[in-house]
Each structure stands twice: as C-alpha cells, then as structure tokens.
C-alpha cells in the first residue's frame, strides 16, 4: 500500500487555485455567495471544512495562524484545526489576535480590533440568510439577484409584532455594500458592528454548502433593522469576573447545581491580555494550567 503524501496546507495546488478564484470573485462582489467545488476534507462537514479550505488556499509559509471557536483558542475543535495546519503547513501559530495574519473563527469575532493586512476566515454552516424563509436554492438565488429582500423584513417585523423585539440573537442578517443581504455566520449579534468598515479582509467558507463569500476591507456592513426598532447589541450586563472588562461578550459559566453562575469573557486572548495588564475581576484567577479542568 502506498503511503499517501500531502501538499503544503493539505490541498493540492489545483484545488487551491480553484478556491482562490472563488475568493477573488467573492471579494469583487461583496456579500455575494460564490459557488465552489468544495472538497471532502479530513474533518467532518459542519466542523469547519469551508473555513479550513479557505485558510488552506490563502496560507503561505510566513503566515501566523490563530484559530478560535466560541472566541477561545482552547476549545477542542479550535485545537484540532490549529494542529491540522501546524502539521500540514508547518506555519507558526499563535493565540494573540494582534500577532496573527490569518485568524480562522467559528461563532465569534475577536474583541481586539483587527488591523489592515489581517484576514479573518469564518466557518459557515448555512451561508444563505434566506434559507429558513425559503428552503429552495433556486428560489433564494433569484431573490438575491433581484434584491428581493421583503420576506426578510416581514420576518423581522413579525418578530416585533409577536415578541416586541427582533428575536434573532445570532446569525443576525446584514446588508453588505448596500446590495447583498448576508449571513454573518452564527456569531452573536453583539459582533455584527465589528464587521462594518473593518480594516481586515473577511472571508466566509461554507464547505458542505459549497459557498464562499467575502467582505473586503473598509466595506459598509449594516445590520437589518427598522427606524423605530433600531439594531441593538446584546451583552449580559456585568463585568467579566476574571478581567473586569465591561465591553466584551461574556460566557455564562454554571458553577454549581444551585443556580450559581459567573460571567467571563468568551474571547480568552482578550481576557488573558487584560489580566496580564493587571485588570482583576471579582474572581481572582490563577494562571491557566493545561488540564486544570480538562
């Protein structure tokens, strides 16, 4: 049996070229979903194969890669993807948002502002923002082509009529460059404003659904809303228990079976950076130890 040999960053160069062409088209038409011939990757569909293919296609030997899931560098899937590229591309990896040139993410945008030259690669499960209103791809592509987004506004209006609020708390739809309605991937809507006028390039990869889309640097990204019901961010109203940050998105941690809970930064790099600067929350935190609760 021949032992298989793999190319730099796993994908063969032909496949990378195909993906890069899709990425270039996506950048040229901000928010438009470009079909691409997604490959079977050695991790399951739904676990980041789209993001992994985009990262593999853009990664160069001098890149520094950061991978986060739920804002954290230490969730198992983030570790698994980071190890995959460390092994197949041999690139340097980091947990620092500022030091990374490529950041692959699932469900969060880092708290630290991104800078020009960085690329944020999102893993996308369902790229079509209209999918839950219209299951057919043939139909939704037509709606995008005609800019026919009335259905989405009706959905948001119905939320307000029923609940008094727009009842979408994550994967909150945005309009990109005043043209395409786009799914920001299942990030909490807290992160939506970070996409607007962002100096970094934002790439979105959906492997199972075979779509790539993009927000070029400094592009207008607007969360859909109404004049009398403007878009609002949600954040639990408390400082982080570890670093006292009052501007970061918080994870709720259940600490016992009596209903006790605490709130800590979901972005671990941000939280650790603040602690290193001497910020302290109500819970004094020990330095993180591998395997402490693992």
């Amino acid at each position: 049996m021949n032992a298989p040999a793999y190319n730099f960053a796993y994908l063969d160069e032909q496949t990378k070229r195909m993906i890069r062409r899709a990425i270039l088209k996506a950048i040229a038409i901000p928010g438009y979903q470009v079909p691409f011939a997604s490959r079977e990757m050695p991790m399951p569909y739904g676990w980041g194969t789209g993001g992994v293919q985009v990262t593999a296609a853009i990664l160069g030997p001098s890149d520094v890669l950061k991978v986060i899931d739920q804002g954290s560098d230490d969730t198992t899937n983030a570790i698994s993807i980071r190890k995959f590229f460390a092994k197949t591309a041999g690139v340097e990896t980091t947990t620092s948002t500022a030091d990374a040139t490529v950041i692959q993410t699932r469900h969060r945008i880092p708290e630290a502002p991104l800078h020009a030259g960085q690329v944020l690669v999102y893993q996308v499960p369902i790229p079509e923002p209209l999918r839950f209103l219209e299951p057919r791809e043939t139909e939704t592509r037509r709606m995008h082509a005609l800019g026919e987004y009335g259905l989405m506004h009706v959905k948001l209006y119905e939320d307000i009529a029923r609940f008094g609020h727009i009842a979408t708390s994550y994967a909150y739809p945005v309009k990109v460059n005043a043209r395409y309605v786009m799914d920001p991937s299942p990030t909490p809507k807290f992160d939506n404003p970070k996409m607007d006028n962002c100096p970094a390039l934002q790439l979105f990869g959906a492997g199972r659904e075979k779509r790539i889309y993009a927000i070029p640097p400094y592009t207008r990204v607007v969360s859909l809303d109404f004049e009398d019901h403007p878009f609002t961010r949600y954040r639990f109203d408390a400082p982080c228990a570890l670093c006292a940050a009052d501007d970061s998105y918080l994870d709720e941690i259940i600490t016992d079976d009596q209903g006790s809970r605490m709130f800590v930064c979901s972005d671990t790099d941000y939280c650790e950076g603040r602690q290193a600067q001497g910020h302290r929350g109500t819970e004094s935190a020990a330095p993180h130890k591998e395997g402490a609760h693992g």
Partner: protein
Amino acid sequence: MYVAVKGGERAIENAHRLLAHERRGDRDVAEVSLAQISEQLSLAVDRVMSEGSLYDRELASLAIKQARGDMIEAIFLVRAFRATLPRFGATEPVDTGRMAVRRRISSTFKDIPGGQILGPTFDYTHRLLDPQLAEGHVPEPPATAEASPAAMPRVTDILGRDGLIEPSPQADVDTPVGDLTREPLSFPADRDLRLQNLARADEGFLLALGYSSQRGYGRNHPFAGEIRFGEVEVEFFAEDVGFAVPLGAITLTECQMVNQFKGSATEAPCFTRGYGLAFGQSERKTMSMALVDRTLRARELGEEVVAPSQDEEFVMSHSDNVQATGFVEHLKLPHYVDFQSELGLLRKLRREFEAADASPPMQEAAE
C-alpha cells in the same frame, strides 16, 4: 476560585489513544486482517467503495477496520483520501452489455437470451441463524459448469429493438460528463449529475425514497427489467498511443428498471427507464437508485412533482451521508456564545411577559 476550562489538547490526544485501544478490543482475540474484511465482509467493502466513490478493496477494508465497522465513518475516510488524488483523465464508458456475468435476473420475462442466472444471492434463503457458521465451518465447494457461450443482451436492448422502451440517451462526445466533485452543483441538474449524486448517495436514504415512491408518493409503476452483476473491462484512451488500452476489470451491479409508459399526440407510448449502477454486488443500492433516478425524471417527462422523491433539490441536497452526518453531528461542537445570546433574549422576553402580567390590563394596542 474559577479556572477556565483548558487542556483540550491533551484531552484530544488521550481520547484518540483510548479510541485506538477500544478499536483493537480484547487483545487476547486475534486481530482482524484486511484480507479477512475484504473476503468475508465483501458486501460491506462493496458499499464503502460505492459510496466512497473509490474502487479499491484494500483501502475500503482498511477504512472499515479503522472505523470499527461504522460504515459512514469508513465511507468518509475513503472520500477524504479520494479528494486528494490527482486526475489523469476519464476512462472510456464501460460496456455492461459485455459484462462477464455472475448473476443476472429479469422479472419482466420468464426466459431471456442467455438465461436467468441466480448466482450468489440471499434471495430464497430462509433467514434462520446458522449456528454452524459460528466457528470452523467449511462450506461445500460451489457447483460449476462450462460458461455458456451465448451472448447476454440487456433486456432493455431487447425491448428497445421494437421501440417499446425509450432509447437510452446517446452520449454527446463533445460534452464532457459532469462531475459534482469538481464543479459546484447547481439546480436544475442534468441526469449525469443526478446519477453521480445517486451513485454516491446513502443506501438507506435511497431505499426509503424508492420505497416511498412504490407506496404512492411519486408512483411510477416499476418492473425490474434486469439486474446484472459481474466484471466489466475498463479502458483508457491513451493520447500517446492513440488507442484505448485496458486498465483491468471492475465488479459492478447494474439495475435497469422498466417504468410506466408515456406518450403524446406526436409520440407513440413507450416504457421509460430508471437506471442504477454501483461498484461490487450492491443490489439494494442499484434498485433503489433506479427507482429514484426515474422519479427524478418527473420534470423531463412532464409529470407533476408532488413527492419528495421527485424533487431533485430535496433528494440531491440530502442524499450524501458524509455531508449529512457531518452536519447532524456538528451539534456536538460547542455553541456557548449563540446559546448565551438566545438565553439573554429569552430572559428579556420572559421579564417583559411577567411585567405585563403583573401590571393592570392595558387597552388593546393599536396596530
């Protein structure tokens, strides 16, 4: 004092180590060999090759061993490997009419040129557990005879001579056959892509869809015109030498369904076709595939699309078990931040609900 959850890296390594241990099972029991899997679980190997879209018994056996017998996991392993293979070109179309037949039956004619050949089949066995098989049983050698020199024309070709069945569409040599692993799929999809999708599709999914069409959801009155299983030659047109060179033989199962006829003011009525083809001996798969191929031709044949099995976007978007299992199982991944966002919204809505409940009734809000 709270310490954030860490240690994922070591946890993953240890989980993989434990998995390898569990895969091996009791070390006092002999390890299963790839040859044993290939020879004695051959139908499992056939399925992994078919749905994995890679004709390699050894790699399929390895995948089954590595996946601890989980078929979809094994198919996934083969697919991921296949995706990395370079393409040298496409072979000539195989000619199943010239198959070295090991089994061939027709349910539409009692006798056919070349005869009905039962071959190795579970059909007509009584499904009684056989305690003899538990250990050390040596089966009788099979009965043999000289192979018949008679040709075995396809039953659908016999029907076709009288125009009773629609002709098989002729390949346009200038139009390459579609490949949904190299080009993104878009709808509506032509029959070449549909058949490729069905050939890779989950056997259970196709079985249920085909079954639903038999029970009236998109019914099309099928007859198993012919099922044949055996070896066919694979040839590759080599540009350098200017002719097709044989690469070897592969084992295939082909099913041709003969379905309800259609006609119009300008066309005489004739039977229609549903087609199934898979690696190895895969009869359930090819029969289900042929049923669904036919139901998916509803649009082409001017039939009303009323059932799931007739809806190509529904069928093709959900037939791939590697995609399906990935997305279903991704729910195991953390969703903390989205859930937190939902919790926040729900708490807010409940607070408002309780506040509204506690306050005196307000007048009806004007819409």
